[in-house]
């Protein structure tokens, strides 16, 4: 149920932290993330693999594995912190009711022995108490919305192409009309034309249903198709958040800068450049700025962890903007 806008921001995340236990030590996958999301807004989280993007999505949705070492912070949905809720309460009131998700490789996550229509109908039956008939009717409506012929409800996942399966996964997230949808790499395994098609569909849904999106991806070019704002994640932390227009033309953090320069462009003449080195291990991340080892602009100050500065109101975690 899409809530009517109030003065309160839709979603505010404060000091979100998620650490995992592993044989070699504690993995600091999400390490103190602050983020806000407004009504009808799409924020894109970009970063290299292993920077903690997916863990952040899991932390927001409370889809946690067993080896959690620490999980804390605030997830404030329209003024209410949902972190103190019990798992059962969270499941009934938040997950898939207020925040839904399209998981990574969703096209391969569909149940192979259930008709896709039944899978899309299920959240409606569980969370809204619809009868099977009504839920299926709703599922058909969702299929049309995401651009799948509605008689496909009777098909199985293997009878659909990759793009169609991805749309079905999206329909599954839409069916309860949540306020926020978390999309984890929604187009990375798809062909160019299918990708463009799905991005079109997402834009349309954002306009017509007024939903908000958190889009997690390493594909910066495609992410710009939906982004209102961009957040850059590096080694478990968010190093920059900015309005898409300003970010894509002039990123502030040296990492954002290099990340943008590494994107090959079809139009334009500058050849892409790669970022030397690798992201640090999240088990014992370096003290100070975590990007310092790869940063061409590092100086003495970088030995200390930078706070978030706000030049022109743009949050950036770098000493250059002190």
């Amino acid at each position, binding site marked *: 149920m899409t809530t009517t806008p109030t003065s309160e921001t839709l979603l505010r995340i404060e000091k979100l932290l998620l650490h995992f236990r592993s044989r070699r030590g504690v993995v600091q996958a999400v390490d103190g993330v602050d983020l806000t999301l407004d009504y009808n807004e*799409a924020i894109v989280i970009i970063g*290299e*693999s292993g920077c903690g993007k997916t863990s952040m999505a899991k932390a927001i949705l409370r889809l946690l594995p067993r080896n959690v070492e620490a999980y804390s912070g605030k997830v404030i949905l329209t003024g209410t912190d949902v972190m103190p809720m019990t798992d059962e309460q969270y499941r009934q009131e938040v997950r898939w009711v207020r925040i839904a998700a399209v998981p990574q490789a969703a096209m391969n996550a569909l149940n192979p022995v259930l008709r896709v229509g039944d899978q899309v109908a299920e959240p409606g039956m569980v969370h809204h108490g619809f009868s099977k008939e009504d839920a299926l009717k709703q599922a058909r409506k969702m299929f049309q919305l995401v651009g799948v012929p509605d008689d496909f409800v009777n098909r199985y996942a293997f009878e659909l*192409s*990759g*793009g169609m399966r991805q749309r079905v996964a999206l329909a599954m997230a839409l069916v309860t009309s949540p306020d926020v949808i978390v999309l984890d790499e929604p187009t990375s395994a798809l*062909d*160019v*034309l*299918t*990708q*463009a*098609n799905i*991005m*079109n569909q997402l*834009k*349309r849904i954002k306009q017509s249903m007024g939903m908000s999106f958190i889009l997690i991806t*390493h*594909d*910066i*070019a*495609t*992410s*710009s*198709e*939906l*982004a*209102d704002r961009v957040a850059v994640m590096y080694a478990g932390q968010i190093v920059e958040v900015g*309005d*898409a*227009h300003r*970010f*894509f*033309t002039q990123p502030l953090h040296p990492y954002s800068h*290099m*990340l*943008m320069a*590494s*994107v*090959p*462009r*079809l*139009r*334009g003449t500058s*050849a*892409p*450049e*790669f*970022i030397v080195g*690798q992201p640090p291990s999240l088990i014992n991340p370096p003290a100070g700025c975590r990007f310092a080892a790869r940063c061409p602009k590092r100086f003495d100050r970088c030995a200390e962890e930078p706070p978030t500065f706000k030049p022109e109101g743009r949050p950036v975690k770098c000493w250059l903007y002190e």
Partner: protein
Amino acid sequence: MDVKAGNGDGRRGEVLLSVRDLRVWFELRRFGFGHAGYVHAVDGVNFDLGYGEAVAVVGESGCGKSSLMKTIMGLYRPTGGEILFDGQKLNDLSGREMRAYRSHVGYVQQDPYGALPSFMNVRQILQEPMIINGVRDEAKRMDRIRQVLTEVKMSPVDEFLPKFPHMLSGGQQQRIVIARAMMMEPKLMVADEPVSMLDASVRVEILSLLRGLQEQHHLAVIYITHDLSTVRYFSERIMVMYAGQIVEKGKVDDLLGNPKHPYTQALIDATSDPDARNAEVFRDVPPGEPPSLVRPPTGCRFHPRCPHFMPDVCDKEVPPDFETEPQHFAACWLYR
């Protein structure tokens, strides 16, 4: 056989690989025996590749680009047409000659982790091609391994030799795959989506490495990809494939700057560059999905999705290659 020196040195401009009206069909069987038609994976493909030239094959999944490459590498037998490598017909080669031929062709797989045997360390992985090709002297093999590892910028070499694939990052794994392909000094390198599994920041690094090897060794490279934006920096020519056929081919700048075939135009329109204005517009995407290759559409295979469809022309006859500009071909009736 000894490791031969020199790849395509001094033979720039000459044709290394020539593909003539190539067809690769796979038979479909019903209940294990009855004939149920063919999958026309590659259906009438023509092109030449020069010594030391890099060409990109662009197409969506299922368009037959991998079948084309596997046939070129001698892994599938062509159903029709022929492949000439260095003037020799591939169809005529005996088993032994075929093995020798394969040592001239390097292959870089899409998924580096899946392509490397998990139970072998880097030294064993890189020795394997030389053992298979009869390099008996272990000292010689180790010399070559050191040389190639330095070329793919895996140094210090001794640190990497005892490592197993899971101990390497994705980029490093792909370097090992490239090193393995370089081991026998191939004349031709086939790279099948070499960077699609890697991070954006590593992609450019691996592609630059391939480009460097190509220039240094005058290696001919076939780079298979679905990502048009990487193509222009890493190849000289592009071939666009759709439903088993090459619909457009030309020099990189001509083809990207002035695409002729409606399918190529659609691909270019659908490829985004990072720009916030993208969020404000909808992209034009042709309706539908690529056709089944069992019963492909008559005439031009793109006609059911084409915005310039001309009834009674496009759906009747297969368009030949029209030379719209020098060295720029489009298989489309718009240019007749």
